Every structure is written in C-alpha cells, then in structure tokens.
C-alpha cells in the first residue's frame, strides 16, 4: 500500500466494530495493519452470518479492508510472547477489550510502553473510574447516553439507529485520535496513550441538544422525519413514492409555497413561526404534495431552489448511477474479489494503492512474523507446534 501512513505498523487487537473501524481507516491510508485474532473463530464479526460472501460476513468485509490477519491464542504463553514481540515492532497498538483483559495478558500500556509507542484503548466507560468494569454494547450506550431518545416518531417508542452509530462514531473518533497522535509523534518523536470511550463519544454526539438542556432545561421530544431546528423538514408521500424536503431558509420556504401554490398562514414567513405551527404546516405540505408525482415535485422545487430529493430505500439508492460508481468490488486474495463499501475520505495528492478485501482468519501469520520479527521458517513452525498460532487462510 502507498498512502500517507505507508510504513506505519499497527498491531490491532480490536474486535467487532469500533476498534476495527479505527484501524481500517489507518489501513486505507497506507498503514500496515495486522489484525491479531483468536485462532478459534477469530473476530466475532466473522460469525455474523448468514448471509455471507464465500463465508465472509458483511460486517467482516465492512470493517477490515486492507488488513492482514494473524491467529494467535493469547491464553497461551507462546501466543502472548509473539503478540508482545509484534507490539515491540509496531508504531501503534489498538485494542477494545473489556477493562483488564490486556493487563491479564501482560499487553496493557503500562506493561508494553516505550517513548515512541502510540497505544489507543477504545473502552466502554473509561479504563479508570467507577464504571471501568462495565461492558460496552452499542444499543445500551445509545440508550444511556440520550442518543436513542431523539430518534423515532412522536408518541411511539424511541428507536436505535439500525447501524450501530455509537460504535461507528467511536471508531471514527478513534481514527482522529490515532492520526493526531501520529502527527504529534512525527513532529516530536513522542508517542502516547490515548483513550476513546464509547459512552463519552455517544454522549458527545448529542451535544446539539445537551447544550440546550444545560442552557434552559429543554428536553426535546421525538420528531419523526422532521428537524428540531428548522421547518419544514420531512418525508412526504406523493403519487408514486416519497420525497424528502429540507428547507433551510425563509426564502426557500416562500419559494416552496409559491411553487406548490400552497396558501401560507400568518407567521409562516419565519422559521420560528413555522416551528411553532409545525403540525399544521406539515399537514398542508403533505396535502399539497400528495397528488403530485416525484418528478413533478423535483422539477418544480429544484427550479425554485428548494432543497429536496427522492426518499429512497437502499435498492433504489444503490441503483442510481452516482451510487453504483462508488459501490465497487475489490480484489480478495483467496476468492478473487469481494463487494466493497467506499471509504468516505479522499486524499487527492497522495492516493492509496489498490485496496484488498478483508482477510481470511490467520492468512498472513507466517508473512507477518517474517517481515515484522525476522522469524525463520523453523521459528514459525516451532510457534505453530505449540498450538499458539492458528493455521493460515481458514475459510471463516
């Protein structure tokens, strides 16, 4: 791989989503990420089947592109020794075990630290303090952090996001943290320990509302497909489907009302007035849109400068040419190729090389031991003979 982090070695002990997303973004940007997995089953997401693509789960493919895999049993001394040697050869360590697990293996920061090592711990509620031992689950953190209370329809139960967005936000924030630490090390030579807790990150996502509550005690009520801050915003049924409208300004609302020939009530000229009268406004807009087709609405509203788009399910969205161009397939070492979801970020001056789909469990054990640690073939065989290292390239 080329890319900005070419030559940076990452020993990645993380599993499931948050940690693996952090390390995948490093891998996308050229880092040599070695995923250290248990020889039996590996990362839990390998078992998130059916469905599967040649026995690789969608979650495995989503969060493990451009990584290599070594299967090591950390419950065995030889496995721990090999893991420690990989850390000693790495620039960055990433882990998201429960608090105490890395310490039990002798692989926690205090045990392995050196001045230039970057060690990122993705914890649930912090590695220290009264909640350190509590386990972290995305749906529970969505609930406890207030995040979940905001999504869903009024007078119905709250609903979590289908994609585990606390895990995802934590993984992305972890990437910010590690890349910041890499930049600091580049300038000063100094590594460091950093921590990105699930709960803290989930709560931080609610800042738009947490700050408001702290100002005047406002507790927002669920708002369906609307918006807390602007009106009208919504998903409206029309003759042949659904349309999403998201008005940002008073001028756009005036243009919307005129384009639809919709009589505007007193007060609707300001966002505050529209928010105060949201239910009536929503009903009027729904009535005006119902008899029209999506294309009629799009043509009329886009000509008037009103932000809107077809509200699509995934099949329709993915069939759009703009989406299809981004939803590529990428090479896989064992199965030819695999479907890929795009990386959200692009560096136009230092593009990364050809991507590689998520590895089979233990596929690269021998190569990693040779390249990172200078192991001979005999040493690899000796480690394998202890039972601490799994065979390479198992179909799971």
């Amino acid at each position, binding site marked *: 791989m080329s890319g900005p982090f070419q030559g940076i070695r990452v020993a990645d002990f993380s599993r499931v989503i948050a940690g693996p997303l952090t390390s995948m973004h490093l891998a996308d940007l050229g880092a040599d990420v070695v995923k250290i997995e248990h020889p039996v089953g590996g990362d839990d997401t390998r078992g998130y089947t059916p469905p599967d693509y040649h026995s690789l789960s969608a979650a495995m493919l989503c969060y493990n592109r451009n990584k290599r895999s070594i299967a090591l049993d950390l419950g065995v001394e030889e496995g721990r020794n090999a893991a420690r040697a990989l850390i000693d050869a790495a620039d960055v360590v990433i882990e998201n075990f429960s608090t105490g697990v890395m310490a039990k293996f002798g692989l926690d920061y205090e045990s392995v630290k050196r001045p230039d090592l970057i060690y990122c711990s993705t914890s649930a509620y912090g590695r220290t303090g009264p909640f350190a031992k509590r386990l972290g689950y995305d749906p529970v953190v969505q609930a406890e952090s207030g995040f979940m209370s905001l999504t869903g329809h009024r007078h119905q139960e709250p609903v979590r996001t289908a994609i585990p967005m606390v895990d995802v936000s934590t993984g992305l924030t972890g990437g910010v943290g590690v890349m910041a630490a890499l930049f600091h090390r580049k300038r000063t030579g100094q590594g460091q320990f950093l921590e990105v807790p699930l709960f803290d990150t989930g709560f931080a996502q609610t800042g*738009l509302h947490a700050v408001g509550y702290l100002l005047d005690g406002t507790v927002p009520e669920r708002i369906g497909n609307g918006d807390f801050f602007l009106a009208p915003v919504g998903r409206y049924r029309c003759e042949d489907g659904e349309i999403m409208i998201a008005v940002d300004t008073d001028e756009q609302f005036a243009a919307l009302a005129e384009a639809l020939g919709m009589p505007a009530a007193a007060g609707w000229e300001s966002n505050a007035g529209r928010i105060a009268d949201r239910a009536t406004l929503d009903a009027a807009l729904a009535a005006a849109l119902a008899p029209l087709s999506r294309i009629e609405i799009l043509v009329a509203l886009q000509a008037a400068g009103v932000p809107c788009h077809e509200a699509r399910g995934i099949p329709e*969205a993915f069939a759009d040419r703009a989406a299809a161009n981004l939803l590529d397939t990428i090479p896989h070492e064992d199965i030819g190729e695999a479907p890929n979801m795009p990386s959200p970020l692009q560096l136009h*001056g230092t593009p990364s090389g050809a991507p590689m789909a998520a590895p089979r469990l233990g596929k690269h054990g021998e190569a990693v031991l040779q390249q990172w640690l200078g192991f001979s073939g005999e040493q690899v065989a000796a480690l394998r003979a202890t039972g601490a290292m799994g065979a390479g390239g198992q179909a799971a």
Partner: protein
Amino acid sequence: MAGVLDGILVLDLSAGVAGPAATQTLGDLGADVIKVEPPGGDPVRAWAGPRLANGDSAAFLALNRNKRSLMLELAAPKGRAAVRTLAARADVVVTDSPPTALAEHGFDADTLHADNPRLIHAAIDPTLPDGSVGRDALHQAASGWGSINGLEEGPPAKSALPMMELTAANALVQAVLAALFVREDRGEGQAVSVGLFRNALAMTYFYGLNYRITGTPPVRHGNGSPAAAPLGVFEAADGPLQVTLAGERVWRKFVEGVANRPEWLSDPRYATNTDRVRNKQALLAELEAMFRTQPRDHWVDAFRAAAAPGGPIRTIGEAVDSPEVRERGLVGTAPHSAAGEVPVVMNPIRFAETPVRAPQAAPLLGEHTAAIAAEFGLALD
C-alpha cells in the same frame, strides 16, 4: 501541555454542521481556527431551540467552540481578497460549498494552492446524486440510510441527530491529519475531500453490503432483530429499558442474575437463541409482564451486577444529569464574551500527553474581525 495542532492555522469557510464540527475538533486539538462568516452570520446562530440572550442558538454553541469569528462580505472583492490573503498564510482551509461555487469565488484547491503550495484544502462536498445540493436529511434520503431506521410495522424514522454530517466531519478531520502528517515529508499540501453522499453510502455498511450480497432488500427491525431474541425496548414501572440479549452467554447471565427465573434455562421454548426467536411472542410477553413489576433502577442495577447488556433509555436531560456524565466530566462550562460562562460538551478523546484544549465558548459574530485584520494586514474598509 501543548496541543497536537498548536501553531496550525485553519481558515474555516464553512457553515452549518459538517464543516464547523470538523473545525471545532481541529480547534480542540490546538489549531487556531478562524471562522469566516457573512454579515448575517452562520445560519445555525438563528436555528430554533434554546439560545443565549444575544440570540445565538445552543446548536451554534455546540458546533463552534475554540474558534475566532471574522465577518467578511464574500460578495465584495475586498472580502474575497481577504480570504486569499488568509489562505496564503493558512495551513488548512475548510470549505463546504459545491465545487462550482468554490471555483466561482476562487476558493478552489488549484487557485489557493497557486498562492500557497503547503496548503491543505479540505472540502465537504454537499452534492446529491442528481447534482443538487443538500445537507444531512437529504443525504439520509438519497443514500437509503434513512430508510432502515424505524419500527418494524411503522414508517422509517431518520436519525434525528445529523449523523451523516457528524460522521463526515470526523472523516474530514482524519483526512486533514493524514495530509498534515505526510506534508512533513513532502513539504506540500494537497486537496482532501469528503462527499456527504459518498459518506452516507459508506454509512449503510453491512445493511448495504448484505443487500449487495443477497439482492434481498433490507427491512426495518426497529429495536429488535430477526436473528436474536430477546432484544428491544421494555417498560419498567417508571421508564423504558433497552435490553440486548443476543447469544447464550448473556441470556444465561440475564436469566440467573436479572430475571431470577432459573426454570427458563430448562424450558425447551427458550433453550437456544433459535428457540427464543421461534417463540419470541411468548417470551416477550413474559418479559413485558416481569419488567413492569419493578422500577427502572431495580432492573438497571441487576443488569450491571450480572454484567448483562441492558440499560435505561434516558432522555437528554436524564443523560446530562447521569452519574456517568458527571463522574467522567463530560459537560463543563467555557467563557463566552457576552454571556459569562456557557455550557459545553467535552471532546471525547483523552490524550495522555497532548490533552484537548480547555474550551473557549463559541465567538460572537465578527468578534475577532479587527484583531484578525490587524494580525494579517487585511484591508477591510
């Protein structure tokens, strides 16, 4: 202790959510962020909801700490010239206009790089698949991401938080940091970008990939799951609980430590996850009846003691006032030029050596115009 980005100058031409969220993080990391605003200010200042006496919204406060505000009329040549002067000195410029609008103003990467080859031009691209422009809600709609949230039997519910823009902000910060890292060796900046639509597609992750693998359109599962039981929302005597018992290990912990119904372990209807999914109706009915008998705190304590995944579904107020937020210091106050101390939600990253900056509250509109003009020799009037 110094911040990671001490001495890095960021020129922020963005407004709304994604760009400001990104530059706020850069400010937290120590960068000097100059927020350029038109005479009417970033529109988020006027968004509805709680606000300061001077009119600035809570949402604006939440997205703009650790920045200075420079008011410029970009429609006027002097305003555009000031941007060019600042961009010639900046390390990073952040934009959120569509590419054509950037080029019209001369704020595109090629033009700005001509004056400053070390510049990192970081763009949020708001373009939708049909070429129009939109923010979070429209990208949820266009990508299909917004269609997969919601109760099984009801309509979709978009994420009420602008997660397409907040995730794009993190991705843009990553791109900036990677470009700063590689600039140390190359000596040159570059253009980096995050497309809001590209990001929204990426965010469909395994829902999107499962569809591509199987061709079966995804369906909404609300708070449950087709593959595991019991999962979902349950009402305790005084409030809702989130329960996520996917798998045998946590089911056993729950039965023994929370429900205290050991007979369920030998009940053939509930023997395995497959059995529980098959007999979900009966199981959920039993659980609903059970949870109603005790207050929420009783169940929450039991879940934690048993290390089983369940917890309270908190309102924003309950979350802010929770022991976790208090003990972990996740809210605080920051000095504000017109309102004394105002609340802030802290950046979640904990660096041992380069802590995020102590927050300075969001600036007043144009608060630092004169100081920045003097510092950079801008001719504004």
